């Protein structure tokens, strides 16, 4: 029987896949970026169906809201133009498409039958903010903090790489 949950799951999934295909098919970077936003939003809908409302909200705020705004910002700032499609080699179509299909079928089979975990029922995840907070700041505090330090290091590395060599030289002389 088609439940409302299943219908919504399929609808969000369809939007997600359509957005992803459109992302590849579009020639203009800004259209691709907007397709990616649609993918992110559809994923947030899927999370919501699983009962992970906090993750869904964060998905929208962080990915659709902040990261993709930066993408769009960069595209606007660089004034990136329309890209040319390559004609596409025959190898990509002959081997790539069937390979992709076989790969995803295999992956689905392994996840469903070999991983030893049951498929998650709709609305079954403990996804309310209180549980997530308990997990992040109590049960897995150390991994969480280590990850944040890692990200901080990555940001500092990016700043160092982006700054001009003369500026670094100047700092060394001081």
């Amino acid at each position, binding site marked *: 029987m088609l439940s409302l949950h299943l219908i919504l799951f399929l609808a969000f999934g369809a939007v997600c896949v359509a957005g992803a295909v459109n992302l590849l098919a579009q020639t203009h970077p800004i259209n691709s970026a*907007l397709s990616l936003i649609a993918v992110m939003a559809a994923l947030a809908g899927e999370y919501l169906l699983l009962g992970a409302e906090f993750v869904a909200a*964060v998905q929208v705020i962080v990915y*659709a*809201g*902040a990261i993709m*705004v930066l993408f*769009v*910002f960069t595209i*606007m700032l660089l004034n990136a133009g329309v890209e040319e499609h390559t004609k596409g080699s025959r190898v990509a179509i002959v081997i790539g498409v069937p390979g992709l299909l076989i790969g995803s079928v295999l992956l689905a089979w392994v996840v469903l039958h070999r991983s030893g975990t049951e498929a998650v029922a709709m609305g079954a995840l403990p996804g309310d*903010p209180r549980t997530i907070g308990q997990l992040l700041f109590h049960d897995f505090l150390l991994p969480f903090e280590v990850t944040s330090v890692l990200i901080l290091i990555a940001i500092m590395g990016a700043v160092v790489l982006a700054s001009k060599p003369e500026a670094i030289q100047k700092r060394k002389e001081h």
Partner: protein
Amino acid sequence: MPLPLPIFVLVSVIKSALILFILLTAVAYTVWLERKVVGHMQNRWGPTRVGPFGLLQPAADGIKFLFKEDLTPPHVYRPLFLAAPLIAVVFALTSIAVIPFGNSFEIFGYTIPLQITDVNIGLLFILGVTSVGVYGVALAGWSSNNKYSLLGGLRASAQMISYEISLGLSLVGVLIMSGSFSLRAIVESQQGFFWYMVPRWNIFHGQFIGFFCYLMAAYAETNRIPFDLPEAETELVAGYHTEYSAMKFAMFFMAEYANMITVACLATLLFFGGWDGPLFGPTVLRVLLPVVYFAAKIVVFLFVYIWVRGTLPRFRYDQLMSFGWKFLLPLAIANLVVTAIVVAW
């Protein structure tokens, strides 16, 4: 007792339509209020001709916008040029869905809350919707294919991302004190009094700095003076909506004022006790009075918005960025740390 599905759908549709109508009317009359108040601050009368006190001016403006010629310049990127005002206005109107206006009331044995829907991530929902609303402004600026529009769009996206961090952090203090993302629960945590006279609202409960950060960041998020750089008319003609005319321009206008109202609603709910106020009289009055208190507090916030607009000049762009990153963000973090320590004590 929970509502059966058909009645639930019916009640939701009625509530959504009613709240949308009220919101759009409020948007129209906020414009009127702004013109009137700024007029008086500048020793003018503001609108006076259409109706008593110019009260029918919003209707006249609406008709004018509908009948004006809708120009689409030939050099724009059409799909996004048409979509941008829609994005702006849709997301501005969506966030009202989770805002509670008053207590729930009972009718025919069913309990109906004065709110379209009460979700337990209400606050995050609003933050998410506002963060997606940036695309309206950014895409309008880019798709117009005009240097002033592009600069306005770039400024808008940079400014909104920068101030969203302070906005979010300034709210965490309130969240720590109430322990919930649900706006209804946050209001309910502010009931009662200190020393029998001062209401237990968060602003009197150690969140004054949080409120200050919220207000500053919210002014920047809604592109209002003194942070209205995306549409700074002395530098950028009209910023991101330079190329828009007629109803498309009106949609950006509506989005801006709807966002102002959402910000005022959030400030009321989070820092000023929502619909909290003295209750008395028969049941009908007990249901209606909270809504009146809520509306009154919102009008005060809208007045402050307009007052600031009539008083302060615009920031320079570098001042805006250094204020946001070097002053507001550390202040919000400090407020968060102090609140956390005090609550944990």
